């Protein structure tokens, strides 16, 4: 991507906040995403959620979904406690983005997008735990945010991006390859720009930028490698972008795998078939959760803390 295109994209992204009708909680929420986990205060989170009735309702729905143990949670406070602050913080974000993107601008179906994002978040987190990566919750967040560029492209380049998705689905090819052909850039360019604009950490920005480009991974650090592998696993487990891709992936021979093994030798002890079966087992729940939270008619603003 040349410098001119980059500065054009950046200018568009800088205007994004004013283009979309962001819910009032977006900005305080972004402040919270920038904080380390141990600095997040329960009261602050509960206050934020309670501010927006629609989001509060969806948060309760999530806490009561099978993926999180189907708890009988009735207040925002108990929902937050049940889900854990970290989980709530990242889930709040996806609920919030759903409000940010106007309905007619969604190119990838919202359910497909969030299934992939939530799936990738969970897989990145589980893999992080398996290899003893020190911050699995950050891994979760990196997985959740890695494809933000799709939302940027949907809002700013709706028709061009729609054409990308159409061609990619028709040819069963990875979306980023077609984005490069049609738009001259991909979600791996616009996603990190938005992350940067929002002041998210360098690791999260890198994960969004490098998750398809193996040549960038060695300088990006382990989080980007984790997201790269999880994204591939997600896509072979039918949690892609809503169409069938033709792919055969040798994860053990992947550059990201080799980089990770050097720092986290526990990866060598991971039975990938078993790990894939575990992911496959969790798929139905991921799908049910996303559908129940984002798909169905949103709960009325009746929930209170």
């Amino acid at each position: 991507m040349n410098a001119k295109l980059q500065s054009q994209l950046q200018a568009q992204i800088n205007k994004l906040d004013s283009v979309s009708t962001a819910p009032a909680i977006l900005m305080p929420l972004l402040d919270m995403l920038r904080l380390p986990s141990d600095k997040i205060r329960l009261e602050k989170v509960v206050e934020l959620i309670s501010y927006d009735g629609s989001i509060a309702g969806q948060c309760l729905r999530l806490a009561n979904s099978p993926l999180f143990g189907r708890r009988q949670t009735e207040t925002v406070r108990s929902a937050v406690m049940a889900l854990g602050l970290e989980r709530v913080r990242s889930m709040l974000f996806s609920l919030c983005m759903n409000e940010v993107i106007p309905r007619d601008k969604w190119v990838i179906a919202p359910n497909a997008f969030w299934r992939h994002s939530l799936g990738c978040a969970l897989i990145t987190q589980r893999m992080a735990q398996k290899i003893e990566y020190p911050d699995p919750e950050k891994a979760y967040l990196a997985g959740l945010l890695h494809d933000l560029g799709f939302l940027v492209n949907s809002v700013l380049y709706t028709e061009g991006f729609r054409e990308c998705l159409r061609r990619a689905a028709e040819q069963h090819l990875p979306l980023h390859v077609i984005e490069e052909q049609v738009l001259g850039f991909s979600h791996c360019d616009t996603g990190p720009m938005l992350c940067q604009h929002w002041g998210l950490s360098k690791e999260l920005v890198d994960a969004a930028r490098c998750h398809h480009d193996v040549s960038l991974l060695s300088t990006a650090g382990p989080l980007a490698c984790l997201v790269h592998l999880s994204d591939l696993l997600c896509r072979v487990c039918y949690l892609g972008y809503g169409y069938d891709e033709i792919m055969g992936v040798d994860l053990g021979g992947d550059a990201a795998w080799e980089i990770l093994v050097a720092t986290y030798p526990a990866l060598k002890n991971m039975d990938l078939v078993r790990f894939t079966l575990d992911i496959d087992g969790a798929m139905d729940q991921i799908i049910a959760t996303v559908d129940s939270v984002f798909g169905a008619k949103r709960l009325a603003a009746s929930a209170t803390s």
Partner: protein
Amino acid sequence: MPIEIAKAKPAVTPDSNPSDPAYLKIRDLIYRISGIYHAEEKLYLLVGRCARRMVALGVVSPSEYLEHLTTRGNRDAELRLLLNEITIGETYMFRHPCQLDALRNVILPQILQVKGLISLKRLRFWCAGCSTGEEPHTLAMFLLEEKDKLLAGWTFDILATDLNDNSLEAARAGIYGEYALRSTSDALRRKYFKDIGNKKLQANDLLKAPIHFDRINLRDDSKMLFQKGIDIIFCCNVLIYFDLASKRRVVQHFYSNLLPGGYLFMGSAESLFQVDDSFRLVHFPGTTAYWKPTATQAGGGKK
């Protein structure tokens, strides 16, 4: 004279709560011994299989059944019976469409490209442990359907082997009922089977032509060494009954039997972790397979 009614054996209802830790132990035992793994969310499947064995034994609690599998004298036999239960119902045609998609979309185009340049346009498949023949017949239908498309200009043959003579005899006869054909379309039934009455269909000559049946014991080294030049091997849920050493030897044989660039398919929940590290595990949508790299492909991953 009053008729004495024999008292029915009291029905045993096994405790079937998947969160019982004993089931997790059984799951881990099965994984360790056979390589078959049940994810937490699929544990209920294993519980159902155990329940059948528990009823047969009159055992109620899973922890008691675990004893049957670990400490009782007949544990090896019981383990085998449980493995039979676990893999039962695996055998019907087109049971694994993802494997066929992987063949059509990725594996065959890859092999055709490499082989097309250097050798005869001929492909060799081997169903090792073909049981009653559902797998080779499915493969034959799939390949025959691709004959004028992907495989135009190519010939192929399928070696289908088993140790059990009764299974082989049934496979050769190629007679199937509704269960085996539940996922076979009407069009394929009409094209590749003849109706022999009594709700049975028999594979016709067109379908039988590419398949060659033979009796091979996978533990027989001399016979295993003899198989050469294979492109794709299917060996689903056969090695689960083998101990680690024999499993290792069979997989090493498979590696030599395959041409470089060839693939080995195992059962869908069957892992070769720590059994073999010569093969490379490749993920395809909905399935995995083991790949023998060619000299030039051995370096890195494929996207």
